[in-house]
């Protein structure tokens, strides 16, 4: 007995010691939260310094950097530092500005875009060319390659690219398209030299060569990609000697790596990690409302939600504000009203008033009118990362309408399959793309998209179809296009297709010595361009 007691005492002391150790780890330096903005920091820190390697953590493993083959946003973030596109969005995404192209014009029928190219652009030296000058032929080659072979169709509707002169190309479209420039800003449409592509073949993805500020030094599979400064860069001379992108798939370990100094910067900070980074005196958390929205899709052609009254009832029965607060208790999202993020130029805040507020009484009444006074059973599909949203939404539907929504948690492959085939009665997912409304509204609401993930609820309204088509085919004038999109969104809101949930932040955590980094709403990482030139103050 005495021996047992001894053992117990020892056991409890071991536990106490380990808890103390944990407490010590958790309670590090508490500082007031900072709402930092890139520009302010730079002024505070004085003159930019040259040198140093910036280490950036990416949450997924980059497999290939080939512009036509890559599939993830994290891959495009590396590509951004290596290559350039003809045009680019400014950091605030308000307009498209020149990059490799200096100017452009659009034909009256909106089917031919003509670009003048810069004259002083050179490729990074590689195995199959020694850093030669970029020409119009390279633009033709790269864009046609993208148009024909891109896995994700990053350049749609291009018939051919014509070389007009050494410094001039024309892109011919098969139909008028006002959203072409937005597509051209995609990392998949950077200009690459043919020799390298053809020389490396399948290996080009790990030996990407472009015209950007940094070039590949080493590609360590599953571990990291090292870039070094390219002396041939046509833009401002980068302050950094190089960049290292490290792949860290576990979100908590990513934050730990940032705190321990393994990396200097992490993108896509979520949940409690926001609070941890905000509290750390050596770190900054920069946030901005992003281009990502979350919504609950309501099946339009099958099950009880076929009835518009049922959909309306569901929308009224979900307390979105409460849901967003509950899910994002550490911040990182706000209530979303429209199927378009605020950072898009097409966003029309006057439509917000037309979105009905939370009203469980009216919801119940509508559901009874639709013939379901006692609710019904249904299924709510989500991927694991959105289970919190689903749990709260299902609880609210149960409490307010007695709808039993069974949460079906599946992983991405299954989810996309079930949703695209229109087999999910209810589902919660997110959407994120270019700021041009075409990439949200056409994808999610045009009847031609039925059968793909965007329009997984099989929504079809000829009037909306027509408005969405006109918005890209009639004019390139943003104001006029915005008006057409507003009309479409008004109709979509009346038809009750979504319950809009959260508008997500882009949050980047970084060491305080990282200077002049500007967080972008599209969460892409630009380290050196006409607006920014990141440096390290250490």
């Amino acid at each position, binding site marked *: 007995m005495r*021996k047992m007691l*001894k*053992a117990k005492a*020892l*056991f409890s002391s*071991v536990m106490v010691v380990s808890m103390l150790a*944990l407490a*010590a*780890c*958790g309670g*590090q330096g508490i500082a007031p939260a900072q709402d930092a903005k890139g520009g302010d920091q730079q002024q505070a820190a004085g003159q930019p310094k040259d040198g140093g390697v910036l280490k950036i953590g990416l949450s997924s*493993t980059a*497999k*290939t950097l080939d512009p036509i*083959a890559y*599939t993830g946003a994290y891959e495009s973030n590396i590509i951004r530092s290596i290559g350039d596109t003809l045009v680019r969005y400014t950091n605030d995404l308000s307009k498209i500005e020149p990059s490799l192209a200096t100017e452009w014009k659009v034909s009256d029928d909106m089917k031919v875009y003509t670009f003048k190219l810069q004259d002083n652009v050179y490729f990074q030296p590689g195995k199959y060319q020694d850093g030669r000058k970029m020409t119009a032929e390279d633009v033709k080659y790269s864009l046609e390659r993208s148009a024909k072979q891109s*896995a*994700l*169709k990053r350049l749609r509707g291009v018939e051919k690219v014509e070389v007009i002169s050494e410094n001039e190309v024309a892109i011919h479209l098969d139909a008028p398209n006002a959203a072409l420039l937005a597509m051209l800003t995609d990392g998949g449409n950077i200009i690459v030299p043919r020799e390298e592509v053809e020389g490396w073949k*399948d290996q080009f*993805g790990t030996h990407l060569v472009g015209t950007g500020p940094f070039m590949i030094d*080493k590609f*360590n*599979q*599953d*571990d*990291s990609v090292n870039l070094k400064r390219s002396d041939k860069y046509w833009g401002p001379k980068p302050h950094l000697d190089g960049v290292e992108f*490290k*792949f*860290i*798939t*576990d979100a*908590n*370990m*990513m934050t*730990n*790596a940032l*705190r*321990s*100094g*393994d990396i200097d910067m992490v993108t896509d900070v979520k949940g409690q990690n926001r609070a941890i980074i905000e509290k750390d005196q050596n770190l900054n958390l920069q946030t901005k409302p992003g281009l990502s929205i979350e919504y609950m899709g309501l099946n339009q052609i099958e099950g009880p939600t076929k009835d518009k009254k049922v959909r309306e009832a569901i929308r009224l029965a979900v307390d979105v504000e409460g849901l967003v607060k509950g899910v994002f208790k550490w911040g990182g999202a706000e209530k979303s009203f429209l199927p378009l993020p605020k950072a898009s130029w097409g966003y029309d805040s006057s439509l917000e008033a037309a979105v009905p507020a939370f009203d469980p009484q009216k919801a119940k009444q509508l559901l009874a009118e639709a013939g379901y006074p006692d609710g019904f059973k249904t299924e709510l599909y989500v991927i694991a990362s959105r289970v919190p949203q689903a749990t709260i939404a299902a609880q609210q539907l149960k409490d307010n309408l007695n709808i039993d929504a069974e949460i079906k948690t*599946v*992983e*991405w*492959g*299954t*989810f*996309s*399959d*079930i949703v*695209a085939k229109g087999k999910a009665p209810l589902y919660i*997912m997110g*959407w994120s*793309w270019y700021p041009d409304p075409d990439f949200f509204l056409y*994808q999610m609401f045009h009847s031609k*998209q039925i*059968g*793909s*993930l*965007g329009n997984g609820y099989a929504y079809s309204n000829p009037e909306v179809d027509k408005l969405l088509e006109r918005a890209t085919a009639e004019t390139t004038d943003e104001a006029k296009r915005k008006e057409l999109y507003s009309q479409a969104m008004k109709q979509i809101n009346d038809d009750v297709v979504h319950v809009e949930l959260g508008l997500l932040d882009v949050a980047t955590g970084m060491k305080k010595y990282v200077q002049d980094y500007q967080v972008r709403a599209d969460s892409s990482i630009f380290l050196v361009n006409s607006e920014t030139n990141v440096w390290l103050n250490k």
Partner: protein
Amino acid sequence: MLKLIFKRLFDLIPTLFVVATTVFIITRLIPGDPAAVLLGPQASPDEIAKMRETLGLNQPLYLQYVDFLGSLLQGDLGTSLGYNQPVMSLIMERFPNTLLLSACALALSLLIGIPAGIISATKQYSFWDYTVMILSLVGVSMPIFWLGVMLVLYFSVHLGWLPATGMGSLSEGFGSVVTHLILPSIALSTIPMATFARITRSSMLEVIRQDYIKTARAKGLREFFVVWKHALKNAMTPLLTVMGMQISSMLGGAVLTETIFSWPGMGRLVVDAIENRDFVVVQGTVLFIAVIFVLINLLVDILYTVVNPRVKLTNKGEG
């Protein structure tokens, strides 16, 4: 002996055939279309259909199976859908990393686990015995992912001594790899270490009470020789069995450890492949691990005969 080893190797073939078939079926049974996953949320049905064709997914399942077995016979594990590279070369790039991590963890667990078990057994019911037993109980029940995060919080974030993630590279010097290796090795070694300590203890306790140990002591042999030479050798047999099992499960533990510590090994490769429905990589890697598993078991069987000459390898592979 050599003949028997070959016989055992030959016996591998049906085992691997069953593994290959099972893996093939399971990876196809999971719902979810690799083409859709590969193309991402914005793909249209046409594009998905085209991609399915490119990947050969529109062929009937039995044809895919025949293809798969056919290439397998030629040692070809297929080409990854995501990486667009031969699976064998993907595995071979990462296997040394997993091997390095597992070997370090194994060495650590043996070097600490066995002596701890011996001390525990020779000093039964002492303070040291209790300490080892309690720590080993904590050890076997500690989830790797939790321990991993705790180690990083303390040694990387709080003390700043060791890097949190990654593998380092030899180009930054040997020390870079060593420092990166420490935390994941500790995390991966905890469970086997604790298991070795417990097994060594119980096995030693049994042996120590036997007559020949008493005889050895009565001969006036020093306690050190009695324990390490006479007792331990006979206590080794159960330890070997457990060791074989632990090495195999270490490959499973490596999947977790590698994910937590961003260690670029096979574990991460397979987790990533499962998420992306890259079933060519999944089936290739699982097959590869199965081969290793079986080979380790064979090795353990051979080691039995070395440790205990009374054990003979038999034709039936009973070991």
